[in-house]
């Protein structure tokens, strides 16, 4: 995975325990390098399994699940889109399967995928296109380091602090928010 994503601007790359969470790699990407990463994954025989968004305290974490057909291994690519302007580039030009997954994510969370050719409602009624059922109440949003697996960090961009554990004092505060959730 390190070799595959060599040279791309990354935020965070960690090896995870498959037996525990069902994923081998955890990657955080800046939105800009997503399409390039997807191209490299396609060239390396990965297939797109799923796209989902997760409404966290820091923003919408758009999660791309990739896996192999012929050998084990799952990679989770994640892009954080801020709440006020949730824009993520579309990878539908690389993985056409993303067309629908992205439309679904837009339905549920309101994440806009730039470059998607036809970003119209898929599962929800077009008349309620501005209603995003899986967006969380701002009070009950949880910081993503609370539940996303940190794994064994292989690379971390110094400016990317979202996954580093909090200082003890702060963690109590975030623990409080989790309890109200």
């Amino acid at each position, binding site marked *: 995975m390190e070799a595959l994503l060599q040279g791309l601007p990354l935020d965070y790359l960690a090896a995870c325990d498959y037996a525990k969470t069902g994923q081998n790699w955890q990657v955080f990407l800046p939105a800009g390098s997503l399409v390039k990463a997807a191209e490299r994954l396609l060239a390396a025989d990965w297939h797109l399994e799923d796209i989902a968004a997760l409404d966290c305290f820091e923003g919408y974490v758009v999660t791309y699940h990739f896996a192999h*057909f012929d050998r084990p291994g799952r990679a989770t690519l994640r892009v954080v889109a801020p709440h006020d302007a949730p824009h993520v580039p579309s990878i539908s030009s690389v993985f056409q399967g993303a067309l629908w997954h992205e439309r679904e994510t837009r339905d549920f969370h309101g994440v806009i995928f730039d470059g998607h050719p036809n970003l119209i409602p898929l599962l929800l009624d077009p008349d309620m296109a501005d209603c995003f059922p899986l967006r969380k109440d701002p009070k009950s949003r949880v910081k993503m380091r609370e539940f996303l697996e940190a794994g064994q960090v292989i690379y971390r961009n110094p400016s990317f602090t979202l996954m580093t554990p909090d200082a003890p004092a702060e963690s109590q505060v975030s623990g409080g928010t989790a309890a109200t959730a």
Partner: protein
Amino acid sequence: MTRYADMGQVAGDFYTENFAQTAQEGSLILNLGPQHPSTHGVLRVIVELDGEYVLRADPVLGYLHRMHEKMAEVKTAAQFIPNMGRVDYGHALAWNWAFVGAVEKLAGIEVPERAEYARTITCELNRIASHLLWWGAYLLDLGAFTPIMYAFDDREKILDILQVPTGSRLTYSYFRIGGVAQDLNEDCLSRIRAFIPWMRSRLPMYKDLVSDNIILRKRIEGVGVIEPDQCRRYGATGPVARGSGINFDVRRAEPYSVYPKLDFEIPTSMLMDARGRYDVRMIEIEQSLRIIEQCVEQMPEGDTLVKGAPKPSWKVPKGEAYFAVEGGRGKIGVHVVSDGGKNIYRTKLRAPGFSNLSLFAEVSRGTILADAVAILGSLDLIIPEIDR
């Protein structure tokens, strides 16, 4: 979302208008569905026709959308299990398993051996039932009316067996976090033992009546060719991928439960067309019988629910987990993210039919309308699963 300007001549709703914007001059836009005999429930496909040729097709989903993922947010993990029986009525137990497995993985719960066997047996029986349902419905799509009756005759036997431990016939909620709801009793096991040779004796009839029939062969051979590369780009799994020569089965690729201990084959077909997918499913019925046979033999004594199984007030610990099982239609994945609260923070359901159907627009381009229907059927669609 801005509404597109009214096109004037095009009568229809938002989706038809949107679709018609890029239509060619002089083509015919036809809405197949949502109430159409060959769309298995309430799928709607907008097709642009030039005579009988499909220029473009665009499935429209959402007519059976129930927002299971939102329901998961407002229910505890145990309370969400009945929902999983309703996602895919064809292979409900695989969905049961995917969700329960994800929660167990997150909480680190070990399932007793006997429960694993019970899960495997019931899940495989359900897989045969799912394939039989597909077989009958697909032949109905192709215009043969009788096979569905024969298929349902056999499927009825499976449902009778599954009714013993689960109490239901279609929308099972049999699995529990840490095991299964009820043990497979001797009555059930003896029925299963009797069922295996019966089902084997029925398969030649299927072959005679349908698989060898020249009309059917001509209808599905060379129709809807899906290249392995397309499978990769669209994330198609299950018999659709295996029919395209990709040897991928979650039971082998990411083994779970007792599957590593069992001896069975993953059928693949290099034909890549509807025939390949048909063959794969028919062989899978045989392989599932083999799995069940071995499981019934090897099944140990013991508990079927882990000691100290979760109480209603149990909270799923913090963290995330992804668990995938092989369903009748492909890889069923459930991604669970929990913040340690009463309800699970986010549950993402990965429906195999969703990815498989997204292939349809590309595969159906340039085919004849009848072929488009044949392709649609060969993808084995269960609409509630796709719409969730």
